[in-house]
């Protein structure tokens, strides 16, 4: 006789069930020097999305990322990128929209800056997301699009490409100095 368990699992759900955006991994910082995703980035998904929720530093600094083609042994993919921001201070000034030449990269293996300097008051943090396109391609460069906001308020717009035809299989996030005191990073795969 069938049991309830049999009934629950003896049915193949339609492929659309659960949606096309799957949570692959979630990591919560706790005085972490960095947060790396060293598994789950492969040809399973064409597009990956990372969500950053209340990333809080131990010391004021920019939040950054880099990619790896060797499973996370080294994070040093060559990148060319753009960076601009819109900002307004809590006091109402200054305001503006501007390109930031100090935060972009030109064929550099350095970490890419994703935010302006995030302050360290108890309620300060940065949140946002990053899309990584087709990291497993062995033909094309690896485009990324990111949009972050940190307290001030400063909204940062970052795009670029990992200038490599090797597959990207790991990604690392950290502050330019100091730890990630708290915060969550979620990695999703999109069909």
């Amino acid at each position, binding site marked *: 006789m069938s049991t309830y368990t049999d009934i629950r699992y003896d049915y193949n759900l339609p492929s659309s069930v659960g*949606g096309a*955006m799957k949570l692959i991994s979630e990591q919560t910082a706790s005085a972490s020097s960095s947060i790396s995703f060293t598994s789950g980035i492969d040809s399973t998904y064409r597009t990956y999305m990372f969500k950053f929720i209340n990333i809080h530093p131990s010391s004021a600094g920019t939040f950054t990322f880099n990619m790896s083609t060797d499973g996370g042994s080294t994070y040093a993919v060559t990148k060319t990128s*753009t960076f601009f921001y819109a900002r307004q201070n809590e006091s109402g000034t200054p305001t503006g929209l501007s390109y930031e030449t100090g935060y972009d990269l030109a*064929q550099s293996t350095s970490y890419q800056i994703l935010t302006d300097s995030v302050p360290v008051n108890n309620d300060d943090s940065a949140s946002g997301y990053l899309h990584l396109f087709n990291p497993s391609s062995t033909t094309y460069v690896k*485009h990324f*699009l990111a949009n972050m906001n940190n307290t001030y308020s400063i909204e940062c717009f970052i*795009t670029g490409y990992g200038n490599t035809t090797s597959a990207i299989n790991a990604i690392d996030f950290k502050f330019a100095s100091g730890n990630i005191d708290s915060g969550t990073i979620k990695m999703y795969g999109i*069909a």
Partner: protein
Amino acid sequence: MSTYNAIRYNNPYTNAGSLILLSTQTASASTSISFTSGIDSTYKEYLFIFNNLHPATDGTPLLFNLSTDNGSNYNVTKTTTYFYAQHSESGTGASLAYDTGSDVAQSTGYARIAESTGADNDQVSSGYLHLFEPSSSTYVKHFISCFNCYQSGDYSLASYSAGYGNTVSPINSIDFKFSSGNIDDGTIQMFGVVS
């Protein structure tokens, strides 16, 4: 008494995920990629994700248009904005600017959504476009897009475009193409966004 069928279907599966993959099209020396079905009142928002679109012709921007007659004509009147950020591999040319040559004002022509992608073997564009409530018969049809392009002059070139199809007729098809030449390679996926 509940039947097996009742058990199977008495679950809100359609609400289980925020994105529902409706269609995937892969270019292969394609003049354009059109989605002529699946755009209807089922979803209030549609998301198109573009992965590694590679042009046959060097330096060609990506364009799109909308249709209200199932793809017989792509000529919906549009008004758009377009700005970009760029930075070259040599470290020069960093800038952020509005591009008056890439927007359209009440035009039925194709509108630019990504910059002039290079045709070198590793050069592509990727990005996304949101289309809001295309089935509305009351309001205009807003869209928002963001792309990054490996530009033909070896720039990383980000493009941000938004606008609206200025029609109260339902949009039921959408077409993407390069301004000249084929889409040699790449995929475009259409998702319905669950409210």
